[in-house]
């Protein structure tokens, strides 16, 4: 379910990016219903964030170009274990709100807490790929590891990008990230919270292009340009490797 919505979100982003209608807080979008990133004032829909405007039917949206990660149910995120309390882990998910991963949401086996130290499963500083199970109104975030893709990420490096630009890094049906993986030979995991995990020999190059995608996210024809850039860099790299 969440994957389908993510895909449609990416398509939306591509389409909007091609139209490139930049709006600022306070800009009037017209009459209709107020979607994400907008509010109603004196009968008209007004943008409340800096971003790209879009109208679907009579609904107005603004896709923000900057901002922090606000957790939503079903998001796949990369987190770092920050603290262990009683029978749960506190996870930093690159958001103002720390997330809680309880024992029952991470393991299927019975654990006797009097005999076992929880660091055996996830230690301080461990990096995990998890799914957001629930977010309450008071922003209490719960995570779960009970998903096929959820796991501990071992080794590699982490980079942080603006969370609103994650769909662009993933690309249409994952085209962008797949292309980077194929070309650089790195393993890459993108969390919807803007944290990207990269492991492999060319991880520096992968990180570099991801930063570039972030910077030019609101432009069209990005995938091709990134591909050209990667080809050129990899060629230079192999030429240098050959002469040594």
């Amino acid at each position, binding site marked *: 379910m969440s994957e389908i919505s993510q895909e449609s979100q990416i398509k939306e982003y591509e389409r909007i990016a091609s139209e490139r209608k930049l709006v*600022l807080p306070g800009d009037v979008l017209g009459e209709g219903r107020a979607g994400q990133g907008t509010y109603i004032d004196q009968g008209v829909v*007004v943008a409340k*964030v800096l971003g790209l405007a879009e109208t679907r039917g009579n609904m107005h949206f603004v896709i923000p170009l900057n901002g922090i990660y606000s957790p939503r149910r079903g998001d796949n995120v990369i987190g770092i274990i920050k603290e262990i309390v009683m029978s749960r882990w506190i996870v930093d998910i690159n958001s103002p*709100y720390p997330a809680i991963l309880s024992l029952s949401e991470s393991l299927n086996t019975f654990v006797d807490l009097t005999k076992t130290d929880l660091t055996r499963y996830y230690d301080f500083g461990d990096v995990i790929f998890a799914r957001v199970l629930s977010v309450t109104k008071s922003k209490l975030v719960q995570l779960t590891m009970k998903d096929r893709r959820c796991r501990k990420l071992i080794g590699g490096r982490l980079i942080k990008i603006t969370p609103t630009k994650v769909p662009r890094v993933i690309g249409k049906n994952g085209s962008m990230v797949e292309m980077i993986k194929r070309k650089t030979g790195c393993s890459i995991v993108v969390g919807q919270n803007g944290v990207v995990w990269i492991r492999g020999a060319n991880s520096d190059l992968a990180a570099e292009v991801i930063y570039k995608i972030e910077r030019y996210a609101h432009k069209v024809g990005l995938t091709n340009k990134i591909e050209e850039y990667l080809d050129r860099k990899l060629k230079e790299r192999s030429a240098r490797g050959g002469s040594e």
Partner: protein
Amino acid sequence: MSEVKLIDERGIRLDGRRCDEMREIVAKAGILKQANGSGYFAFGNTVAIAGVFGPKEVIPKHLEDPERAIVRCVYSMAPFSTKERVSPAPSRRSIEISMVVRKALESVVFLEEYPKTMIEVYIEILEANASTRCAAINAAAIAMADAGIPMRDLVSSVSVGKVNGHLILDVSGKEDEEGDVDIPVAYYPRKNKFVLLQMDGVLTEEEFERAINLALEGCKKVYEAQKKALRQRYEEVEFEIK
């Protein structure tokens, strides 16, 4: 009241401006790399830069509000910003200005969208030549919009004053020191409201009315400059990946 002649017979001010003319405005967005959002705003040689961080976890924890975000605003003048060195430590004056800037910004931000968080706004005056709090608000509004914080609108600010019996727009150095009245205002364009209004000096009711209308014209110009700065941030990024 004042002995110094600040306006000549033709209504031209010391720096050659007319009474309703502002100094040159320079506005930029996204000038700092490390901050989530940043802005630069200058009225002539009054220069302010602002950096916005967050929304982030509240430190110290007891200030946390379970229903809305809090705004922390710090206004400070660089030691080299004035003729005589200003101490970098917070003063009575800078604490007051931090507060009025914070209140002006709070009135446009959707604080309830990020409960239990804090939005930090740091403003540094690089060069001061009167109207620093106006430049500070303008820079901070640009920085907040740049940081992607949900806002009802931007806030634009300008000062008006009275010297030698004339009402003037955008008070500068000497006019501030020798003038009779100084009124900084901040304007919230969508609601057509003022979110900051301070005054020192004495004005008649009719003069006050005129001063406010003068300020309104100035704020509209500032608003356009702020919007232009934010647009340029995204439109001028040249698209050549090297």
